[in-house]
């Protein structure tokens, strides 16, 4: 249990996938102009991450990892090198399926999240979380917690950023720094603030 709480705190604050590992920057910069869309995209990312990370865990440890095909009588096979292409295909398929399911069963949720779902398939945060999950040897339960809390960390960062950008409209930014430049510097300051959590250990 302590282990899970520590994974949660670490992936929301200290090891925030956006501010410490720079994943999902493209949509972070493009979408954070508006608070409502930022919240929508954040929720969509959290939702997709909590499903794709465990799904990729199952696929990796039952099909791709060295010796994973033992149940099929093929213990000597290592398909680990295929993980990039399989993971991206799984993510694209799950996102597509989710879009159809949500559209069928929950139209209000679809209007809130629908537009963001196709964007998410190529968001590096989603693929990156699955690859981190493999690299850090998480077990199944840990991968569920890791997926969900990474999504929450990403959402926290993008919503904060959208809030700051709203205030920024009234600020007097030097000419060359407007837009992309100042966003990067704000992200840097936010990353610094998040690093203050580094004292937390369990």
């Amino acid at each position, binding site marked *: 249990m302590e282990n899970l709480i520590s994974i949660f705190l670490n992936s929301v604050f200290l090891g925030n996938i956006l501010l410490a*590992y720079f994943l*999902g920057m493209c949509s972070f910069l493009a979408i954070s102009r508006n608070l409502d869309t930022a919240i929508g995209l954040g929720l969509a990312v959290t939702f997709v991450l909590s499903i794709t990370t465990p799904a990729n865990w199952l696929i990796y440890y039952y099909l791709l990892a060295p010796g994973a095909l033992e149940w099929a009588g093929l213990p000597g096979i290592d398909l680990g090198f295929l993980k990039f292409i399989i993971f*991206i295909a799984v993510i694209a398929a799950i996102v597509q399926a989710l879009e159809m399911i949500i559209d069928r069963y929950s139209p209000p949720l679809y209007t809130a999240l629908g537009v963001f779902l196709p964007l998410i398939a190529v968001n*590096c945060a989603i693929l990156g979380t699955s690859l981190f999950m493999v690299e850090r040897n998480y077990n199944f339960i840990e991968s569920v917690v890791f997926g969900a809390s990474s999504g929450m960390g990403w959402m926290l960062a993008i919503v904060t950023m959208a809030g700051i950008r709203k205030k920024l409209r009234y600020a007097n930014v030097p000419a060359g720094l407007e837009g*992309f*430049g100042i966003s990067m*510097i704000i992200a840097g300051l936010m990353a610094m603030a998040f690093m203050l959590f580094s004292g937390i250990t369990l």
Partner: protein
Amino acid sequence: MKITRTKAFKVFFTPIWESNPVSGQILGICSALAVTVQLKTAIVMGLALTFVLAFSNLSISLMRNLIPRNIRIIIELTVIATLVIFADQVLKAFLYDISKQLSIFVGLIITNCIILGRAETYALGNPPFLSLLDGIGNGLGYSQILITVAVLRELLGAGKLFGFQVIPDAFYAAGYVNMGFMVLAPGAFIAIGLIVWVQKTVSKE
């Protein structure tokens, strides 16, 4: 006709400075930030991306008349993912230490917006040779930003370049201290922000 006026020359050199993929078009910054703590990893990452981008542009351009429009994204992703797997295996075989340091960021070349962006906007509508040049040009433009950020971060953060100490001992003896901040994540954000500022100001004149 002078060489600087040919179309191929333009295709090759515009992305290196004027419409640089990272600072001009804001694409592919994810990995640009994460691998720039050291110059070594930045150069390897730049080469890997240039390789993938050049060959994905080339092969997609060769197939551009065969790809059905509505499944083009999947085809593009498959081509890119195959090239990335190739690059990853080569790095693991010949540069194992650097491949460990780059960790997941080689794999993330797949979702790097530069590659899909160039395939969509350029390779699908242009002949193979120009697409190859466009790929190499954009790859080099990306590498150039990566290397600039990495030089800043390694020099200011650790006083080294390529792992060799550059700042003389006399400086440290006189009280110079490495800026540990540059090695951490926030340093990368701020370094990129400042580079974009310089580039925008210079190219405006």
